[in-house]
C-alpha cells in the first residue's frame, strides 16, 4: 500500500467535505475491507482516507443504529455484517437480511465489514481486480470478460460491462424494498434500486453516490403482519467465497395467497436483479410447486449467457425455487 493521511473528522459534515475531492485524493473508510484490498492490489492509491468510525458520538450513533425507529427498521452504515446476522429483532419478516449477512465472506471479515461498505464495494471480476489490465471499468475500450474467461460473469442485464454486483446485502435489501439515506451537499433518500447504476447508464461505476456523499443508513419499511422472507446462495466453497448465484424473496401469505411478492437475484447481473416477471407469476396466487417452477423459468427467461456461464441459468432457477418453497412453507419435492 502507498502511504496516506488518515483523517478522523468529528462530524459527518466534515467527513463529507473531506471526501468531496476526487477519488484519487480521498476515500471514505468504514470497515475498509474492500478498500484496503483494492489499495493492496494497486488498483487505487488515495492520498487521504477519511474515517467514519471515529466520528463524534452524535453522528456515530446514527451510523451505528440498528433497530426499530418509528416502526421502520433502521440500519446504520457502520453496522457490521456480524451484528446483522445476530440481530434478534429480525423476525420472519426480515429473515432474508439476517441470512444474507450471515452467509457473506467469513466470520472474521463479518466482524469488520459494514452495511455501507458491503453495498458500495467494487466488483470482484478478475479482469477489474488485475492491476495490469485496463478493462472497460478502468477506462479501456472493452469488457475483457466478453472474449475472455467469463464463468462468474453476468447472464442478465449485461453489456457493455458484464460484472456481477458483489454485494450480498444488496440482493436481500432489494427483496425487502429498502431505502437508503444519503447525506452530503444534497441529502436524499432513495429506493435501493436507484442506488445502483447499470453499465448501460455508466459502465465505470456501480453506484450513484458522488464524491462528498455519504451513505448513512438503510431503512426497511414497516412489514405487513404476515410478511416473511428468505435468502440463499450457491457457492463453490461454503465459506471464503463469493456466490455463483443468490436468490431473495419477500411475500405475505394471507388466506392462502401470496401478496406483496418481491423476487431478487444476486450475482447474475451487474446490479441486484429484481425479477418483475417472477413476481407477476406469483402475485395473488396460492403457493405451489408448479407455480414456483413457472416463476423460476420466468425469472431467467431473458438470460443471455456468455461462453462459460450458461450453468448459472438452471442454478439460479433451482435456487429461486428452493427459497420460494422454504419461505412459503411448501415442502421441497424429492
Amino acid at each position, binding site marked *: 500500500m502507498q502511504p496516506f493521511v*488518515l483523517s478522523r473528522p468529528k462530524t459527518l459534515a466534515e467527513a463529507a467535505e473531506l471526501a468531496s475531492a476526487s477519488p484519487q485524493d480521498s476515500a471514505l473508510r468504514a470497515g475498509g475491507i474492500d478498500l484496503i484490498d483494492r489499495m493492496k492490489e494497486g488498483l487505487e492509491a488515495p492520498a487521504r482516507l477519511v474515517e467514519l468510525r471515529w466520528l463524534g458520538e452524535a453522528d456515530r450513533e446514527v451510523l451505528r443504529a440498528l433497530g426499530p425507529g418509528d416502526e421502520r427498521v433502521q440500519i446504520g452504515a457502520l453496522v457490521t455484517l456480524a451484528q446483522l446476522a445476530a440481530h434478534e429483532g429480525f423476525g420472519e419478516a426480515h429473515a432474508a437480511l439476517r441470512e444474507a449477512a450471515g452467509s457473506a465472506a467469513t*466470520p472474521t471479515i463479518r466482524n469488520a465489514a459494514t452495511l455501507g461498505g458491503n453495498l458500495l464495494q467494487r466488483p470482484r471480476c478478475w479482469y477489474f481486480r488485475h492491476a495490469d489490465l485496463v478493462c472497460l471499468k478502468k477506462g479501456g475500450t472493452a469488457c475483457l470478460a466478453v472474449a475472455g474467461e467469463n464463468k462468474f460473469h453476468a447472464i442478465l442485464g449485461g453489456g457493455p460491462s458484464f460484472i456481477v454486483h458483489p454485494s450480498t446485502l444488496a440482493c436481500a435489501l432489494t427483496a425487502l424494498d429498502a431505502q437508503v439515506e444519503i447525506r452530503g451537499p444534497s441529502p436524499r433518500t432513495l429506493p435501493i434500486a436507484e442506488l445502483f447504476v447499470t453499465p448501460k447508464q455508466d459502465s465505470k461505476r456501480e453506484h450513484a453516490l458522488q464524491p462528498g456523499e455519504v451513505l448513512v443508513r438503510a431503512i426497511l419499511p414497516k412489514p405487513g403482519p404476515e410478511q416473511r422472507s428468505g435468502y440463499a446462495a450457491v457457492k463453490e466453497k461454503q465459506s*471464503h467465497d463469493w456466490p455463483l448465484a443468490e436468490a431473495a424473496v419477500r411475500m405475505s401469505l394471507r388466506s392462502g395467497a401470496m401478496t406483496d411478492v418481491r423476487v431478487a437475484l444476486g450475482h447474475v447481473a451487474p446490479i441486484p436483479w429484481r425479477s418483475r416477471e417472477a413476481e407477476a407469476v406469483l402475485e395473488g396466487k396460492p403457493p405451489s410447486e408448479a407455480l414456483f417452477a413457472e416463476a423460476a423459468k420466468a425469472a431467467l427467461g431473458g438470460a443471455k449467457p456468455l461462453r462459460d456461464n450458461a450453468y448459472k441459468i438452471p442454478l439460479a432457477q433451482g435456487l429461486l425455487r428452493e427459497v420460494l418453497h422454504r419461505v412459503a412453507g411448501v415442502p421441497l419435492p424429492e
Partner: protein
Amino acid sequence: MSDRAGITRRGLFRGIGTAGLLAGCKPSERPPTTTEEHGDAAGPGAGEAALGPGPAPLAFTLNGEAKTVEVAPHVTLLAALREQLRFTGTKVVCDRGACGACTVLIDGVARNSCMTLAHDVAGAAVTTVEGLAPGGKLSVLQQAFIRHDALQCGFCTSGMLMSCQGLLERTRGQKLGREDVEAAIAGNLCRCGTYPNVVAAVLDAAGGSA
C-alpha cells in the same frame, strides 16, 4: 536433541540479521520516510485529527501490556505486530483476509489483522497467540489442540487458536455444539484439513474450562 536446545529457527534468522539475508535480494526493503507530518499536522479542517503519512504514535494494549509505537497509517496491524513489535506468532499467508492465519482478538472479537490498519486499534486491547500462554504456560485450549492432534503443518494454527479462543470467551458457561465451532472457524483455512480435530479440541476445552 540436546545440542540444539535453545536454538529456534526464528532466533537463528534474527541472529544472522534480516538485512544480511535480504541483501542479495532487494536493494532496500523500505524507503526512508520523507514526510514528518505527525499528530494533528496534516488535516486541513479545524476539528478533525489526521495521522501520517509518516509514522505517528499509536498506543494500545497487547496481551495485557501497554504498548506505544510509532507507525505509519498505511501499516497493517499484522505488519506492526510482526515487524515492529516482533510478535511473530501471528502469521502472514494471503494478506487479503481470505485465510484467517493472521486472526487476532481485538477487544475480544476475532479479526483479520492483515485487513486492519495498526491505527485502528488505538486504545483497544489486542490479544495474539502469544497472549494465550503467558509465561510459556499453555492454555487449556492449546493443551486440547495438542491432545487432539489439531495441527499438522501448523501454519493456520495460531489464527485457528484465536478464532476458537474468541468463541470460548463469548460463549463462556454455555454448552457448545459441533456446529458452533464449525461456524467460528469458517474463516480459518487449514490446507492440511485438520478441521475435525480442531472441533474435537475446542469441544474438549469448552467442557474442561470453567
